[in-house]
C-alpha cells in the first residue's frame, strides 16, 4: 500500500499552484530585478501569460506606483487602494500595450486614471473640502501671530525642534497641494516631483504640451502663494 502511494506520489507530483509561484517570485532581490535590462522582453512574456514575468513587473514598479499615488492623494490608505487597482488594470489591459510608448509611461497613464477615477467616485475629496471650509486658517494658526513662520525654511541639522518644524511644514505642503484641482496636481507631481518631461506628461495625460505647461504654471503659482509665508522666512 505504501509502495503504491509512493508510486502515485512520483507519478502525480502536486503542481506548483499559481499563487505560490507568484509569491515566491516576488522574493527576488531588488538588484536582480534591476538587472533585467530587457524590459520589453519581460513585458512580452507577461503578455503571453508568463505569471513570473508579470510578478517581476509588479515588483519592479510597485514602489513607483505607490509613491506616485501617495503624492497625489496624500493619504496612505488611498495610495494602497490605487496601487491595487492599478495592477489589476495592468493585468487586464496588458495585451493592449503596444510598446510604442515606454512601459512606465503606460503605467503612469493607468495610475493617473485611477487617481482621477478615485476622485470622481468619492465626488467630495474630504481633505479638500475641510481645508477649503477652513480657508487655510488652521495652517495659518500654526504660524506665529504675525504670520511669519517661527522656524527656518529648511533645516540642515536635525534637532527635535526641527522635526516638529518639518512635520508642520509637511502638513502645510499637504494642505496646499490638496487644494489644487486634480488635473493641475497631477501635472505638478509628474513634472516637478517625479521629474518627467512636459512631453511625457502630455502623453500620460493625453493632452497637448501647451496644456501641460499651462496647468503647471497655474499649479506652481498657486502653491507658491500658499507657501508665501515660508518663502519670506
Amino acid at each position, binding site marked *: 500500500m505504501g509502495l503504491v502511494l509512493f508510486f502515485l506520489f512520483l507519478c502525480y507530483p502536486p503542481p506548483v499552484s499559481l499563487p505560490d509561484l507568484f509569491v515566491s517570485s516576488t522574493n527576488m532581490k531588488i538588484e536582480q530585478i534591476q538587472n533585467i535590462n530587457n524590459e520589453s522582453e519581460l513585458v512580452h512574456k507577461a503578455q503571453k501569460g508568463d505569471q513570473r514575468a508579470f510578478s517581476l513587473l*509588479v515588483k519592479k514598479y*510597485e514602489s513607483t506606483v505607490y*509613491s506616485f499615488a501617495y503624492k497625489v492623494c496624500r493619504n496612505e490608505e488611498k495610495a494602497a487602494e490605487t*496601487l491595487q487597482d492599478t495592477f489589476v488594470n495592468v493585468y487586464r489591459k496588458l495585451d493592449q500595450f503596444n510598446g510604442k510608448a515606454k512601459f512606465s509611461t503606460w503605467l503612469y497613464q493607468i495610475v493617473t486614471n485611477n487617481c482621477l477615477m478615485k476622485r470622481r467616485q468619492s465626488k467630495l475629496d474630504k481633505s479638500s473640502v475641510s481645508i477649503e471650509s477652513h480657508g487655510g486658517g488652521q495652517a495659518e494658526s500654526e504660524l506665529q501671530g504675525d504670520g511669519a513662520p517661527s522656524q527656518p525654511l529648511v533645516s540642515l541639522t536635525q534637532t527635535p525642534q526641527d522635526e516638529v518644524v518639518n512635520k508642520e511644514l509637511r502638513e502645510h505642503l499637504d494642505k496646499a497641494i490638496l487644494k489644487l484641482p486634480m488635473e493641475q496636481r497631477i501635472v505638478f507631481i509628474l513634472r516637478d516631483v517625479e521629474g518627467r518631461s512636459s512631453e511625457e506628461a502630455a502623453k500620460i495625460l493625453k493632452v497637448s504640451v501647451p496644456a501641460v505647461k499651462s496647468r503647471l504654471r497655474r499649479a506652481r503659482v498657486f502653491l*507658491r502663494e500658499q507657501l*508665501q509665508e515660508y*518663502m519670506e522666512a
Partner: protein
Amino acid sequence: MKKKSINKLHCNEVAKYVCENLDEHLNSRKCRAIKKHLQTCPKCTKQLDSLKKTVFLYRNCPAPGISAQTHKKLMAGLSLMITRK
C-alpha cells in the same frame, strides 16, 4: 507712467514664461532675453527664487515607502485574481 506699465507688462510676461518653463533646458532667443531680464530685475529674481523653493520643498518632501502589509495585500489580491481567471 507709460514706462512703468511697459516694465510691469514685461515682468508679467517673464513671470508667465518662467512659471511655464522652469527646469526646461531652453536656449531660445526669448529665453536668453528673459535670463538677461532676470539679471537686472530684483522683483522677478525674487519670484523665481520663491518658485524654485516651492518646487524644492515638494521634490524633497519624503513620501512613505510601501509597507510590508500593503505589499502582501497587493500580491495576495493579484494572486487571487489570476487564479480565478
